């Protein structure tokens, strides 16, 4: 049993095979692998006895259930109006030039992916971003680079 097979098997064993458990299982795979590969979707479909097309259809509905490969750290910059008013574009530019990739792309070392997302609910502390599950607020083009440098130097 490879890692992914075990992961899916354990998640299904933990949550159960009812359809209502599909989302928690998909989220469990995302936690480990950062995206849902075709193989992972097929394995979930098989374990839960749901058509693979249904699993894919459900996953693609949700913006946090990515079906494209993502880096170890997924950066989601809030693009809502209040963050836009407070200079979200400069933040994006700073991240792009630091990581040398564009929004939607993943670095060659598979460490970072830059995405934009809708309101994160930090309008009073704009601009804001998420790096996986961690929130960073009141960003400046300088602070965002410092934050990402720490992630890059980590292990």
């Amino acid at each position, binding site marked *: 049993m490879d890692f992914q097979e075990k992961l899916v098997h354990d998640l299904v064993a933990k949550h159960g095979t009812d359809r*209502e458990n599909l989302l928690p299982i998909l989220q469990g795979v995302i936690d480990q692998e950062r995206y849902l590969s075709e193989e992972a979707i097929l394995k979930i479909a098989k374990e839960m006895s749901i058509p693979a097309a249904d699993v894919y259809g459900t996953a693609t509905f*949700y*913006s946090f*259930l990515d079906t494209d490969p993502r880096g170890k750290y997924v950066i989601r910059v809030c693009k809502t*109006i209040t963050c836009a008013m407070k200079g979200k574009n400069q933040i994006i530019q700073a991240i792009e030039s630091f990581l040398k990739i564009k929004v939607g792309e993943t670095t060659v070392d598979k460490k970072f992916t830059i995405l934009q997302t809708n309101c994160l609910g930090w309008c009073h502390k704009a601009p804001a971003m998420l790096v996986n599950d961690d929130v960073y607020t009141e960003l400046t083009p300088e602070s965002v680079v410092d934050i990402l440098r720490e992630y890059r130097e980590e292990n």
Partner: protein
Amino acid sequence: MEKYKMHILICGGTGCRASASEAIQNNLQDALKAKGLEEEVQVVMTGCFGFCEKGPIVKILPDNTFYIEVKPEDAEEIIEEHIIKGRKVMRLLYTDPEKKEVVSDSKHMGFYKKQIRIALRNCGFINPENIDEYIATEGYAALGKCLAEMTPQAVIDEIKESGLRGRGGGGFPTGLKWEFASKNEADQKYVVCNADEGDPGAFMDRSILEGDPHSVLEAMAICGYTMGADKGVIYIRAEYPLAIERLKVAIKQAREYGLLGNDIMGSGFNFDVEMRYGAGAFVCGEETALIHSMEGLRGEPTVKPPFPAESGYNGKPTNVNNVETFANIPVIINKGAGWFNKIGTEKSTGTKVFALAGKINNVGLIEVPMGTTLREVIYEIGGGIKDGKKFKAVQTGGPSGGCLTEKHLDTPIDFDNLLAVGSMMGSGGMIVMDEDDCMVSVAKFYLDFTVEESCGKCTPCRVGNKRLYELLDKITEGKGTKEDLDLLRNLSTVIKDTSLCGLGQTSPNPVLSTIENFYDEYIAHVEEHKCPSGQCKALMQYVIDPELCVGCTLCARNCPVDCIAGDRKEAHIIDTAKCIKCGACMEKCKFNAISIQ
């Protein structure tokens, strides 16, 4: 609990935590220990105080001293001066921007004076990770009262009499909703808490869950008692990690205290709560879509009826309420419907939490009685517009709402008045805009949001909103015509009339309200091809003032497309046809010779 003489409350809302409130807590505790005062003064990390503009905030009880923008290194001085010598640290107090007076007591600050905090009663007052503190502020007393003294119908009648309406935006009477769910017989029923807050500009549900998670759990249990449900589910968006963490702690503590689980308080009533996480889909805030998402399906809405009260989660009767609605319930039970329905206006009772954001001095969370005017909210509580600029509009109700202007400033805010002026309450986000904001671009922003978040199930919403966006885009590019404005209006009406769920039925509101209130601005875009606030990139031109230009060539050297010409010590000229409007020249010019027209 030990008896302490003084309490130091530190805001532990995520906003303040991000700016070092944990370090402040540690330093305060160290300083207390150094002075041997740790037995007499308690340091508490609380939920959000709401005054996020000036965070991190430290409040001292019992004298209500309110310190702003506190740094970890200020801890020692606070202990030394305030706690030991009884002298307030003047430099950390708040200064009223209008009167230029130092205000030491939060009760006299403009920001708090007009507020009545019901849903936010415990935010910034108790430690949300300690159930004892919640219990000490009448927590779980309402649940006890319901279970011991009231029949389910009596509780429903109390809520009905209170006049409480759904705070998630729709404004449907909560008591009625509970009654429908209670009347439908079934072997299994569900209480669902909708914490899938997603309106741009709204963050009150997050703050309530971070600052007072038990109030929501208590209210869900009360709701379960009225309708005969023993299962509760909180559907919370994955973007709120701290709220999720606090809820987990709260659920665990409530179970340990027997306030969730079997035979609650020996009454024979069983109720437990589990959590489900959203995965980034705005439409899941719509109750039928939310239920489908909980069922493991695509989060698409379905036609009502059947209402969730008849056939909801797994086909069973389900009652869905928003976080803020739930947070009001325990107070209504404790203080009585007659107390609650005297606050606010006749048809919108109680208070509403608003999230102030945008170009306003005091950003943050506020809670005011229904019927408070926009002017009071923006000027008295919000402290007016940033940098002395002119107020232009306030957007309420997120993508379902509209922009209100100067002439609406004295409208009392309640559900019906906002609808009457073409906006809506929504979840309570208020984004304030000043003279520099282009209203066509604002409408375009919201449509961009709707296009992305539309689930695609019904055609008017999927296709219609896309067409609206394209028309607005065309106008901001300077290619719009006057006929496009009529088309925008007609298309908006069709989308409103024919969409399946609340998302599409309200999504054209930002367009309609900006056309209605800022018609001149639209006309300027389509007839003169100008953006009066200078925001639409395609419509602006960088111009060099020959009087001010000294011919230093700095701009020409920095222009990435070489569109600036001119000899040394001669005035330069920008070739507007080649200019990409990057603004590099304006940034570099040391003589302010370059402006946007």
